[in-house]
């Protein structure tokens, strides 16, 4: 053991933790005057700096903190993405928070705590690290869901999210304990040795059961069927700003964590977990597509759309190959951008001072706000997976990975589900472009929201021109994850 502890790979986390503590003090001092107005930009700055730090660090795989934390290219890239997504969400929601009078300085702080948790999640290197990071990410989210505490809807959403989330955490923890009980170790590296091809005997049945529980817990965080029940209610009940937050970064982090577990210690046992993931993925795609058809509230619709999209990303995970990991990451990143952009639009749906959530309110938008309408059309066609928009490339890549892994039927089911889902995306385009105009929305002076929506639309439209960087980043991340697991 070396005498000095090298904490450099922890720099992003240290920055975030320091920023959180510093901003608590600052917020407490300035609360009366302009707490949120000053804390939010600083929190965004801290997130961007931490993301830059993650990318700038030396990406040779390093294990720290007693084997609970791992830093490598996978961790670096995912950290940068989740932190930037968190920053984008904070920019996106500022105007809504102000209008709804929930622009308290605690909100960005909770977001920072959650971001710290996400950052640790994608670096988890043991079952304990996994659980701790996941809880650190989740607890602030429960509070945020109930943030509009004088509204029944919001408190109900928060409570529902908390109770179901606690149940999922319990399952996860139970799964971890089973794996630990049957193998005697928490460390991913040791588990990989224990289950490696050199290991005698198969995977103990108890550990398999444990793994299934762990997957169930992760599926809850990803909002995949059959652990999706909370999603529509929480999405609808929570303030729209919180929904926008929930739908973006945490999902990418949860996918990163799932990849860490499945492609890490259990990579050699793909046969054991592949069936579970295939089932979860197929069910999510189908349910997300069908249930979305009958929604009238745009937040519920986006909840089901999110369920379906996680199903698509899991198609890549189910492939169980390096290419599948790449595909899932590319898919999730594109989905993340589309979601941020779409919520950017939902957050502008304010009419005479009140925010509206019914899809029908979008009717005829193209006649009064052509640019906003064009942005909606871009996001909807992209979510439906129509080329040349970004969403198509994500779908193509996951299906390619699935077919290469022999999962042709899953791919066929996926494309058929995407046709069904196309209906509800088209319905929004129809409302915006084909229907007579309803009352106009208010003009919002919201620079952050505009910036994020515009950037997202530009990404979705321009992806076809320069697709290289996204694929290269995903390849780098997958390469760091997969050989580390297979070790050969």
């Amino acid at each position, binding site marked *: 053991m070396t005498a000095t502890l090298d904490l450099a790979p922890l720099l992003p986390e240290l920055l975030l933790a320091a920023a959180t503590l510093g901003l608590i003090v600052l917020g407490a001092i300035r609360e009366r005057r302009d707490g949120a107005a000053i804390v939010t930009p600083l929190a965004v700055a801290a997130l961007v700096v931490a993301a830059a730090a993650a990318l700038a660090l030396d990406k040779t795989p390093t294990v720290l903190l007693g084997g609970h934390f791992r830093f490598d290219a996978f961790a670096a890239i995912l950290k940068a993405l989740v932190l930037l997504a968190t920053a984008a969400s904070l920019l996106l929601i500022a105007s809504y928070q102000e209008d709804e009078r929930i622009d308290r300085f605690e909100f960005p702080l909770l977001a920072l705590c959650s971001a710290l948790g996400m950052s640790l999640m994608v670096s988890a290197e043991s079952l304990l690290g996994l659980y701790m990071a996941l809880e650190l990410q989740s607890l602030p989210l429960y509070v945020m869901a109930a943030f509009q505490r004088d509204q029944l809807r919001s408190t109900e959403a928060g409570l529902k999210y908390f109770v179901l989330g606690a149940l999922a955490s319990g399952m996860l923890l139970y799964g971890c304990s089973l794996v630990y009980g049957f193998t005697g170790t928490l460390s991913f590296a040791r588990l990989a040795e224990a289950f490696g091809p050199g290991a005698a005997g198969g995977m103990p049945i108890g550990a398999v059961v444990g793994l299934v529980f762990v997957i169930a817990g992760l599926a809850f965080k990803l909002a995949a069927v059959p652990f999706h029940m909370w999603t529509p209610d929480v999405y609808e009940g929570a303030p729209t700003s919180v929904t926008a937050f929930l739908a973006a970064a945490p999902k990418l982090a949860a996918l990163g964590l799932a990849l860490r577990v499945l492609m890490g210690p259990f990579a050699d046992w793909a046969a054991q977990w592949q069936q579970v993931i295939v089932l979860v993925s197929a069910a999510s795609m189908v349910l997300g597509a069908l249930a979305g058809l009958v929604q009238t509230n745009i937040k519920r619709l986006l909840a089901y759309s999110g369920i379906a999209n996680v199903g698509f990303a899991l198609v890549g995970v189910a492939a169980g190959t390096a290419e599948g990991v790449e595909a899932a990451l590319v898919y999730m990143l594109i989905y993340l951008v589309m979601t941020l952009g779409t919520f950017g639009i939902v957050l502008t749906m304010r009419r005479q001072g009140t925010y509206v959530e019914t899809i029908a309110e979008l009717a005829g938008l193209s006649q009064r706000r*052509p640019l906003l309408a064009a942005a909606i059309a871009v996001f909807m066609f992209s979510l439906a997976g129509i080329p040349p928009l970004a969403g*198509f490339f994500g779908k193509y890549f996951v299906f390619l990975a699935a077919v290469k892994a022999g999962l042709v039927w899953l791919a066929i089911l996926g494309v058929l589900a995407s046709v069904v889902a196309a209906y509800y995306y088209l319905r929004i385009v129809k409302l915006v*472009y*084909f229907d007579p105009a309803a009352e106009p929305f208010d003009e919002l002076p919201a620079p952050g929201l505009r910036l994020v929506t515009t950037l997202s639309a530009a990404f979705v439209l321009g992806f*076809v021109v320069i697709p290289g960087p996204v694929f290269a980043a*995903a390849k780098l991340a997958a390469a760091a994850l997969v050989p580390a697991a297979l070790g050969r």
Partner: protein
Amino acid sequence: MSDWPLLSLTIFLPLVGVAFILFVRGEEAIVAQNARAVALWTALATFLISLMIWANFDPAQGGYQLVEQAMWLEPLGVRYHLGVDGISLWLVLLSTLLTVIVVVGSWYSVQERVKEYMITFLIMDTLMVGTFCALDIVLFYIFFEGILIPMYLIIGIWGGPRRIYSAFKFFLYTLAGSVLFLIAIVVMVREAGTTSIPELTRHDFPVAMQTWLWLALFASFAVKVPMWPFHTWLPDAHVEAPTAGSVLLAGVLLKLGGYGFLRFSLPMLPEASAYFAPMVYALSIVAIVYTSLVALVQTDMKKLIAYSSVAHMGIVTIGCFTANAMGLTGSLVQMLSHGLVSAALFMVVGVVYDRIHSREIETYGGLAERMPVYATIFMLFMLASVGLPGTSGFVGEILVIIGIFNITPESAAIPAQGSWVALLAASGMILGAAYMLWLYRRVIFGALEKAGLARIEDLRANEIAAFAPLVLLVILMGVYPSFFTDPMAASIDRLLAEIGAHAPGRLALSSP
């Protein structure tokens, strides 16, 4: 000049026009006028550049020409790979020409959201030309599928009363077929390890796999063509689409299906194509006979022409799967001819619809009295649709029918199958004559006594300008077809060689 990237210029020039239109600001009337002008100049310039493609095309070569290649999507091995051959050359020109014509034709008739209207049509131009030029299967799919977006908007925004239903039906129907094609692409790419169309053509796919791949491709192309029984979206889409939308839908979009058969199904999956050819013949014959009968009883002019399109495209699909030089040439000529004639017929309907706002045949009668120019032009295209010798329609049909007789006996599932197919296909021409002549009689002849028709005006200058090139081309193709077929010949020979090269022992389809 030929070292200019002519294909890329043709594909992306319309997008430059779109950028210009986006920057047009000011009062609504001025914006509309400027948008029209920009769209017209852009479409014209694009058409002129596409003529340069034709000028630089060497008809003696069968391979792809004016090829452009660049790595584009490295991790997936997808290239930006373009090229034209004798099969795609005319279809590229058809697309750029029809874009000019629809811009001219809707100069006065479209008054709402002119800016968006012109933008969607220019985007259509880009996507159509891109589809025909793409030599990478993923790139092809991107253009092919991307067309759904502008077409959905065209039908939905500028369409008739049931436009929303039709737009959804069009979009979802086509998408459902196309996603299976996407899966087939993925499987083919995985099997052959390349996305390049020429390389995929050289790859031997196992026969068992071919069957599934062929069916997946068929799902997409049969909906596009459309073949009976996958045609039900077409009458709805045509009836509700604005005239210009119908023109591009009939003129170019239906060709994508036929082009798909020629570019993918036949050369890449020859054994499966031979196996399924009798099914294609059967479905095409049903399409020809059944939809012709359906066309006879239509009361809506656009619906009638839409059903006649299904019948005419039946000739195209039979021609594709005869897989001999005559049949394939006939199939391509029929596609071009249908592209011109049906486009013109939809414009013919559009002319009176703009004036009277009715598509019902009953509303009209005796138009010859007040609209002599209109009546003449209508007659020409009506006769071309029927297949009168001297017009383009005749050339395609006769070549396909000769092609059917040339189907080699060993390929026939039933003895003397060729003659039966030819007989039934030719019956479509008789039925075609029946419904078209009857339509013409009811609309043009008789006394001009129906309400509202007394003051109807003859063609405006912009309408004559839009019809003129079509008239010329239809007659040129009728009297001097080798002008069009000569550049095709070498490519068709190459295609036949590709079909034959795969399995010399099982030369089921090809006949020299």
